[in-house]
């Protein structure tokens, strides 16, 4: 056993290094945009500055009824309306519908039900979807790539724990200014501090997309035809609508249905109303419970007959495996979280981001001594080095460019929503070119400083442009300054350590 232990650790160290490196850059991007996604609603609000702040808390039943009245004018012939009500973190009602093959959407004032005009933007949704679907790539291919990276992450975590024999002693050791040793200590500290979070977030990440990655149980023929819909029903309230009758019908009071659901689950419980075939005699209304205040995201809803308003079905529980999945998924997206928990999840994700980043840097630091011995660094070494700069220091610049685009792109621009996103990738590509063209040490400092400067100035842009009638800065602007300070701090540290080395 004693002879086998070092060999095992060596094997695990090799596995850890290579699984970490191969998907490190993608994992870094997934961690950082994932961290931002915990403030998806807040980002979306900030990116639509025209929308007025609510003067009073909307009553869910009333705002649902008003939204229905508006949709009867906006989308009378729809197959389905989906109405997402305003809540603690959203100040608008988001309505979407489908007429034939065409999707439509609108944001409504929760107090009046009237459509609101705001700039075309994906808002926080962009970071959220990029986090697991990337962009430009076909959806399924992108998600497989993300899944593979996540699996590598899981293996890197387990092999990292096995490699790291003195996990707790080392946690309290930090040797400053000792080059490789310090990078290793930093890598260990951010990894161990949030290890339960890293393990949880990685495994639950796989669970969120498991029907894509592991379809084999559900695919067993021939009962797959029945299993698929039943499986879907365990995971979402968005089920395919039934057949319409073809006879026109009126819709009963949706507000009353929402009130009935509130009696069951509490005042702040209803998040969504789905109306199938709204103008038809066979219409159905599904009042869906929100995820705030409960960890599991397993679907909970009431189904009402549209024309009569009578309660037809109650979905209020799930089997053990379905509920486990609901809890795992819920832990990943943290929609249950209050403000303090949300910040904890955000900071833990940043620890994960730092874990990947320090690991990537460590790979080059370890090999730099050897590279100095030979005349010219190998191509592989230089590639890793440049990709590290472009990803670790460059992604914050690209994210900042996306937010700048939101403020500066003309409102009338065709495909404005898409252009904000193009700007993110254009900035990232420019950053890569910059990282290749500049001396490595200087590129690190300059890109972190650029990220800090872009975020520091950004809140002023909104104020200068007079966005929002009340003007001034928001809590989100202050958070941007916080992030800017962190980036500036990193730039200064790297700058100083460079001086010491010289």
């Amino acid at each position, binding site marked *: 056993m004693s002879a086998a232990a070092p060999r095992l650790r060596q*094997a695990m160290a090799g596995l850890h290094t290579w699984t970490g490196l191969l998907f490190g850059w993608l994992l870094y991007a997934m961690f950082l945009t994932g961290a931002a996604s915990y403030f998806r609603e807040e980002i979306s609000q900030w990116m639509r500055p025209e929308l007025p702040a609510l003067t009073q808390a909307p009553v869910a039943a009333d705002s649902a009824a008003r939204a229905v009245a508006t949709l009867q004018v906006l989308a009378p012939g729809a197959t389905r309306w989906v109405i997402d009500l305003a809540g603690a973190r959203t100040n608008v009602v988001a309505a979407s519908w489908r007429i034939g093959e065409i999707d439509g959407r609108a944001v409504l004032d929760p107090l009046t039900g009237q459509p609101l005009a705001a700039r075309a933007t994906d808002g926080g949704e962009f970071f959220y979807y990029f986090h697991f679907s990337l962009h430009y790539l076909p959806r399924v291919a992108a998600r497989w790539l993300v899944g593979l990276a996540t*699996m590598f992450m899981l*293996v890197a975590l387990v092999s990292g724990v096995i490699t790291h024999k003195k996990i707790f002693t080392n946690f309290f050791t930090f040797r400053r200014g000792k080059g490789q040793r310090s990078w290793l200590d930093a890598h260990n500290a951010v990894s161990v501090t949030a290890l339960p979070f890293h393990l949880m977030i990685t495994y639950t990440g796989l669970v969120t997309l498991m029907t894509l990655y592991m379809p084999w149980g559900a695919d067993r023929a021939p009962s797959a035809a029945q299993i698929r819909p039943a499986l879907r029903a365990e995971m979402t309230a968005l089920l395919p609508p039934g057949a319409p009758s073809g006879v026109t019908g009126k819709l009963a009071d949706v507000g009353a249905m929402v009130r009935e659901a509130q009696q069951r689950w509490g005042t702040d419980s209803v998040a969504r109303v789905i109306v199938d075939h709204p103008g038809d005699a066979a219409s159905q209304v599904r009042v869906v419970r929100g995820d705030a205040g409960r960890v599991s995201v397993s679907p909970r809803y009431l189904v009402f007959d549209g024309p009569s308003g009578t309660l037809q079905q109650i979905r209020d529980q799930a089997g053990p495996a379905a509920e486990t999945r609901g809890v795992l998924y819920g832990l990943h997206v943290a929609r249950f979280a209050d403000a303090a928990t949300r910040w904890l999840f955000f900071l833990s994700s940043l620890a994960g981001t730092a874990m990947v980043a320090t690991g990537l840097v460590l790979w080059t630091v370890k090999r730099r001594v050897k590279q100095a011995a030979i005349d010219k660094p190998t191509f592989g070494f230089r590639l890793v080095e440049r990709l590290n700069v472009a990803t670790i220091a460059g992604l914050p610049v690209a994210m900042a460019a996306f937010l700048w685009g939101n403020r500066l792109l003309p409102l009338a621009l065709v495909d404005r929503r898409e252009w904000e996103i193009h700007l993110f990738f254009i900035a990232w590509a420019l950053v890569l070119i910059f990282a290749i063209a500049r001396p490595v040490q200087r590129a690190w400092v300059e890109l972190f400083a650029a990220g800090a400067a872009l975020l520091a100035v950004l809140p002023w842009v909104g104020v200068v442009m007079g966005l929002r009638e009340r003007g001034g800065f928001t809590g989100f602007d202050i958070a941007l300054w916080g992030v800017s300070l962190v980036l500036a701090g990193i730039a200064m540290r790297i700058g100083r350590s460079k001086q010491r080395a010289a």
Partner: protein
Amino acid sequence: MLRAPARRSSRAALLSRIVAALFGGYALAALTSVAALALPMRTVEAVLAGMQASFLVYAGAVIWVFAARSALRAWLGLAAVALPLLAMACKVWAEAAV
């Protein structure tokens, strides 16, 4: 003269382990997800339980493949776990075919 073939064979062994980890591990995980349907629970519950367990099996398999003393032992270990799972999965497939 002696070292070159030794390096080549260790490269082949590494490649063999990588294949075992990536594809052997996935096959084992996929088998787990099907074998779960042989458990005495509702089909939908079993499908969900199988999917959730499969990723842990995958991670464990990869760790095993690189922890094993040789590439051959790595493959044998995967096969040893795959056999009972395969027996369960065959039962599921046979029932499904009826």
